C-alpha cells in the first residue's frame, strides 16, 4: 500500500488549534524513512496527549528498536485534543503520525501502549479518525493489526472487542517477533488473510488474540470459563520478560520534543521489576523478577543521552530506584562526573529511608535542596502492614528529620485512601503523621518555613495483585474520609499552615476500578461513553463520571452485573477472574495466600535479601533475579565541558583550564 503525507491539509488547521507545535513532529532524534523501502510498518501510539505520551519510555524504546531494522519503519501517533479532532472531522484529515504525517490506517500494525485504563476512549477516537473499524472482527486485510500493550493490557478484556492482539510484559523482543511473523506472512502473499496472521501470532503463546477465546458466564454474572475456540491457540498466554538489560541499552537516542512535555528530563532505566511486594502495586507484581542494569551500562547511557539530547536533568528511573544494589556508587560517580555542568540528577521513586536522604544530598550537592518525596502510602502502622509497606512511624520521622536537618525545605508524602480493611482512623493518622513531621522538621532545621505536603490518591484494586479479590471502597466513603482528614489537618492552625494537602475526589478512581477488573461485557460501555463524547478520561477537565454511570446503566441493563458488581464487590477464592488465562507468572495460590496475609496484617519480605517465597514467576517464566553488586565502577571522565555536559573540541583550546563560573555555587542549605 502506498501512502502520502497529510501535512499540507493539517497545516491549514494548525493555526486554529491550541499548542499546534505538538502536531508537527520534528523531534530531535526522530526518524523518518522511505515508505517503499520498508517491508513492515508500525504506527506506535500512546493514547494520551502528546505532552504526556512523548516522554513515555516504552514507546520510545520500541520506536528505536524497530527503526534500527533496515526493512522496518516505525512512526508515532498520539491523541489529538478535541479542538483538532473537530477540525480533522470537518476537513476529512485522518489520524496521522507525527513523524512523516502518514495516515495511521496505511500501516501494517498499530501498537498502542496503555499505561492506564483511562486511555481506552482515546483508542476509539484514534481508530475512528484513522478510519479503522472500531470492532476488530469488522477489519479486513486493508486495516492495520491493532496490538495492545502496557501495564493495563494485563487485563485487556474491557477493550477486547477493539484489539486484534495483545502483548503482555516487556516489548523489546516481542515487537521484533511480531515483525518477523508479519513480514513472512506478507512475503508469502498474505495466505489465509488476517485470520491466518493472527493465528500465527497466537500460536507463539506470547500474543493474546482475544477473538480466539470464548467467555462463558454463570447465571449470576460470574465467569464460568474462558477457552480457545480453535486449534493452534494455547489455553494460556504468557508475559514477555527481557533479561540482561545491558544488552538493551534503549533509548540510545532519546527523543527531544519541540513542545513542552510533562517530563522535561531524560530518563535512564536503572533496573526493571520490583520485589518489595507492596500488595497494591500492580507494576511491582507484573514486572518480576528484578533485573538491574550495570553501573557501566548506566554511566554510558547517561553520557550518550546527555550528548544527544541537551537535557538539563537525568532521572534514574525504576520502580524503587534506591534499591539498586550499587546505587551509592552510581549516584556518587555521576555527581562527580557532572559537577560544574549544571546537570541535575534525580531519583524519581524512593523509599522512606535515611539512606535515601544521603543519596539525595549527593545528587543535590551543587543545587538547591527544594523538595524530597517519600511514599509511606498508609497513615497507620496497621494499614502499612496490610499493604506490606514496611515503614515504621519512627523510621519516617527519623528520615524526614534528617532531610530537614540537611537543608531540604519541603517533604512530600504520598498516601492512598480506600485501602482494604481501612477505617477512618487509619486515614486520620495521616494528619497526625504530617503534623509530627512538621514539628520534628521545625526542630531539626531551626526554621519555621519548612513545609510538608501530603498527596492522596484513591486506591484501585488491580489484576495480578493480592488485592485483585478486594472490594473497592465506594467513592462516597473515600470522599468522606478525605473530608475528615482535611478538617483534622486544619484543626491545628500553627502546624496546619505548614501542611499542604492534595487529593482528588474518589469518582475517577471508581471508573478506573471498573475498567481495571472488568471483562468483555464492558466493551459496549466503553463504546457508549465514547459515542457520548468521552475523551481524555484521565484529565479531570474532560472526565465525566455521570457519562460512565449512565453508560453502565444502559449497556449493562440486560446483564446480571452492574458498576458496583465490578467495583465494590469482594471476589471469592475460586471465582474465575477475567484475566486468569493471562499469565503474569504469579501463582494464583500465592496471590491468594498473600491476600490472606494482608487481612491478617502479616508482612512479606523481599526475595532479594531473604529466601524465595515462591511467588511463581521465576520458575514459570524461566527467569532469575539479576542483581549486583558487580563491584565494577564508573570509568571516571577527567573533565567535561564548561557550562555543558558535552565537550566540543571546537570550543576547547588545548591550553584551557576551565572552571565553570557559576557552577559550584553554594549548596542552598542553611548554615
Amino acid at each position, binding site marked *: 500500500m502506498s501512502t502520502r503525507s497529510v*501535512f499540507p491539509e493539517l*497545516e*491549514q488547521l*494548525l*493555526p*486554529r488549534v491550541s*499548542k*499546534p*507545535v505538538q*502536531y*508537527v*513532529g*520534528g523531534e*530531535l532524534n526522530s526518524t523518518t524513512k522511505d515508505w517503499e523501502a520498508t517491508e513492515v510498518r508500525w504506527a506506535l501510539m500512546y493514547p494520551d496527549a502528546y505532552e504526556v505520551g512523548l516522554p513515555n519510555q516504552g514507546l520510545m524504546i520500541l520506536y528505536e528498536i524497530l527503526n534500527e531494522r533496515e526493512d522496518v519503519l516505525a512512526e508515532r501517533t498520539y491523541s489529538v485534543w478535541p479542538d483538532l479532532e473537530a477540525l480533522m472531522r470537518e476537513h476529512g484529515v485522518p489520524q496521522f503520525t507525527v513523524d512523516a504525517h502518514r495516515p495511521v490506517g496505511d500501516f501494517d500494525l498499530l501498537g498502542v501502549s496503555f499505561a492506564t485504563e483511562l486511555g481506552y476512549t482515546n483508542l476509539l477516537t484514534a481508530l475512528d479518525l484513522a478510519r479503522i473499524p472500531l470492532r476488530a472482527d469488522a477489519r479486513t486485510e486493508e486495516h492495520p493489526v491493532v496490538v495492545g500493550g502496557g501495564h493495563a493490557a494485563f487485563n485487556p478484556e474491557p477493550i477486547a472487542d477493539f484489539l486484534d492482539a495483545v502483548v503482555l510484559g516487556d516489548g523489546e523482543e516481542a515487537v521484533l517477533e511480531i515483525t518477523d511473523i508479519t513480514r513472512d506472512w506478507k512475503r508469502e502473499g498474505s495466505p489465509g488473510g488476517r485470520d491466518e496472521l493472527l493465528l500465527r501470532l497466537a500460536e507463539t503463546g506470547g500474543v493474546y488474540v482475544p477473538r480466539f477465546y470464548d467467555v462463558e458466564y454463570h447465571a449470576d454474572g460470574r465467569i464460568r470459563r474462558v477457552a480457545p475456540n480453535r486449534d493452534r491457540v494455547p489455553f494460556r498466554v504468557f508475559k514477555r520478560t527481557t533479561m540482561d538489560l545491558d544488552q538493551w541499552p534503549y533509548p540510545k537516542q532519546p527523543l*527531544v520534543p*519541540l*513542545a*513542552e512535555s510533562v517530563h*522535561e528530563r531524560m530518563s535512564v532505566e536503572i533496573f526493571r521489576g520490583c520485589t518489595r511486594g507492596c500488595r497494591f502495586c500492580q507494576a511491582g507484581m507484573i514486572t518480576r523478577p528484578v533485573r538491574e542494569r550495570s553501573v557501566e551500562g548506566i554511566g554510558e547511557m547517561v553520557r550518550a543521552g*546527555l*550528548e*544527544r*539530547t*541537551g*537535557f*538539563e536533568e537525568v532521572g534514574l528511573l525504576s520502580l524503587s530506584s534506591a534499591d539498586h544494589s550499587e546505587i551509592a556508587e552510581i549516584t556518587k560517580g555521576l555527581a562527580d562526573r557532572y559537577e560544574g555542568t*549544571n546537570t541535575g540528577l534525580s531519583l524519581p521513586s524512593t523509599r522512606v529511608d535515611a539512606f535515601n536522604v544521603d543519596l539525595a544530598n549527593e545528587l543535590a550537592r551543587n*543545587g*538547591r535542596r527544594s523538595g524530597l518525596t517519600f511514599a509511606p502510602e498508609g497513615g497507620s502502622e496497621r494499614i502499612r502492614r496490610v499493604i506490606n509497606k514496611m515503614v515504621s512511624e519512627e523510621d519516617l520521622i527519623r528520615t524526614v528529620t534528617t532531610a530537614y536537618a540537611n537543608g531540604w525545605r519541603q517533604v512530600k508524602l504520598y498516601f492512598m485512601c480506600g485501602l482494604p480493611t481501612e477505617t477512618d482512623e487509619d486515614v486520620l493518622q495521616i494528619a497526625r503523621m504530617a503534623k509530627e513531621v512538621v514539628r520534628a522538621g521545625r526542630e531539626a532545621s531551626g526554621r519555621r518555613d519548612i513545609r510538608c505536603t501530603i498527596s492522596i490518591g484513591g486506591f484501585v484494586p488491580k489484576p495480578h495483585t493480592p488485592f485483585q479479590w478486594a472490594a473497592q471502597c465506594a467513592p462516597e466513603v473515600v470522599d468522606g474520609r478525605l473530608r475528615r482528614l482535611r478538617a483534622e489537618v486544619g484543626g491545628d492552625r500553627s502546624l496546619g499552615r505548614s501542611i499542604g494537602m492534595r487529593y482528588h475526589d474518589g469518582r475517577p478512581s471508581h471508573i478506573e476500578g471498573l475498567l481495571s477488573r472488568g471483562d468483555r461485557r464492558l466493551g459496549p460501555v466503553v463504546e457508549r461513553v465514547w459515542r457520548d463524547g468521552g475523551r481524555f478520561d484521565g484529565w479531570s477537565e474532560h472526565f465525566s463520571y455521570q457519562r460512565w454511570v449512565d453508560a453502565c446503566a444502559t449497556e449493562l441493563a440486560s446483564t446480571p452485573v452492574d458498576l458496583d458488581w465490578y467495583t465494590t464487590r469482594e471476589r471469592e477464592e475460586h471465582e474465575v477472574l477475567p484475566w486468569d488465562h493471562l499469565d503474569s507468572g504469579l501463582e494464583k495460590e500465592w496471590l491468594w495466600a498473600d491476600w490472606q496475609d494482608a487481612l491478617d496484617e502479616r508482612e512479606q519480605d523481599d526475595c532479594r535479601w531473604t529466601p524465595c517465597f515462591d511467588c511463581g514467576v521465576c520458575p514459570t517464566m524461566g527467569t532469575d533475579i539479576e542483581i549486583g553488586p558487580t563491584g565494577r565502577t564508573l570509568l571516571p571522565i577527567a573533565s567535561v*565541558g*564548561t*557550562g*555543558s*555536559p*558535552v*565537550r*566540543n573540541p*571546537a*570550543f*576547547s583550546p588545548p591550553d*584551557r583550564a*576551565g572552571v*565553570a*563560573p*557559576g*557552577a559550584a*555555587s553554594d549548596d*542552598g542549605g542553611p548554615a
Partner: protein
Amino acid sequence: MRKVRLRYAKRERLRFMSHRDVARAFERALRRGGVPMAYSQGFSPHPRVSWVGAAPTGAASEAEYVEVQLAERVPAAVLRSELNRALPAGLDILDAVEAGPGVLAHRIDVSLWVIELPGVSPLALASAAASLWAEDRAEVERLTKNGRVLMDVRPALLGLSAGQAGWGVPIVSPLTMGDARDDGLPGGAGRPVAAEVPPGHDHGAAQGGAVVSDDRVDDRRRGAPPCGILAAVVRQATPTVRPDDVLGALRVVAGLEPPVPAKATRMAQGTLDDDGCIVDPLAADRTVANEATGPTPVEADGRFDASSRDIACAGAESTPTPGR
C-alpha cells in the same frame, strides 16, 4: 565574559513553536553543542541568554535576535556553525556578531512582515490594503489575559504594500536603495532592501503606503491559484501589533476574509533611519568587531546570505501614497 548577538530564523513547520519552545530548544542546543555558556548565580543557575522580543506562535521569521553570554571568548563564526549543528533544522542561526557597546533592544523598534494569503486575489488584497491605509483608526479585538480588548492597529502601521506570489520583484516600484554609505562590507549599510525572501516566498518588499498598480497584479502565472502577498512595516508598540492584528484590521475595514489561514514571516527588524529604511541592528556591532579584528572567516568566505543583510526600506523612492 563575552557576549555574542545572534540573528536566527524560525522556519516552516517550526513556526508553530511558541517563544518558550524556542527558548527551550535553544538552551538544549547550547548544551548539546558544548557551548561554554556563562550561568547566572544562585540556587538554580540559568544560562545567560537574553531574548529580544519573539515572533508569535504560528509566525515564521527570518530576523529574530538573541544575545548569549559565554564563559570564555569564542569566535562568533564558530559559535554560529556549532549551534547550527545542534539546532533542529528550521531554527537556523543566520548571523553571529560579538557584541559591541550599546543595548541590542534599543536598536529594534520596527518589523517588516510579509504575509502570504493563499486564495486571496492580489487585486482584492491591494484594494483592502489601500482602504486600511486610508483609515485613521482600525480597531481590532484582541483576546488577552484580561479578556477582550480593542486595539487600534493603524498607528503602528508605517507601510503597507500588496502583491502576488510568484513574482521575483515587488509590485509597485523597483526595490529601493538605502542611503549610499558604503562601508565596503558585504551586506553593510546601503545594501538593497529586503531583496531576498525565504523559501516559499517569491516576493517581499516594504513600501510606503498601500500602492496598487493594476498592470502588475494580474495573474501572470495562468492557472495557478491566486495568492496575495502583503508586506507591512509595523512599529513595535505595547501591545505589539502582530500580523494577525493587521489581517484583523483588513477584515474590519475591508471585509477581507482569507479562505485558509495566512502565513506570516518577519523579514527584518531594526530601527528606521531618516530615509525610512530598516537598519540592521547588528550592523553597529559588526563595525566594531571588524575594526577590532578584521573580517571574520565567515565573511571572508562570502558565506553570508543576502537575506540576512541589513536594511529593509520603508519609504524611500516610493510611489506617492493614494490618499496620503
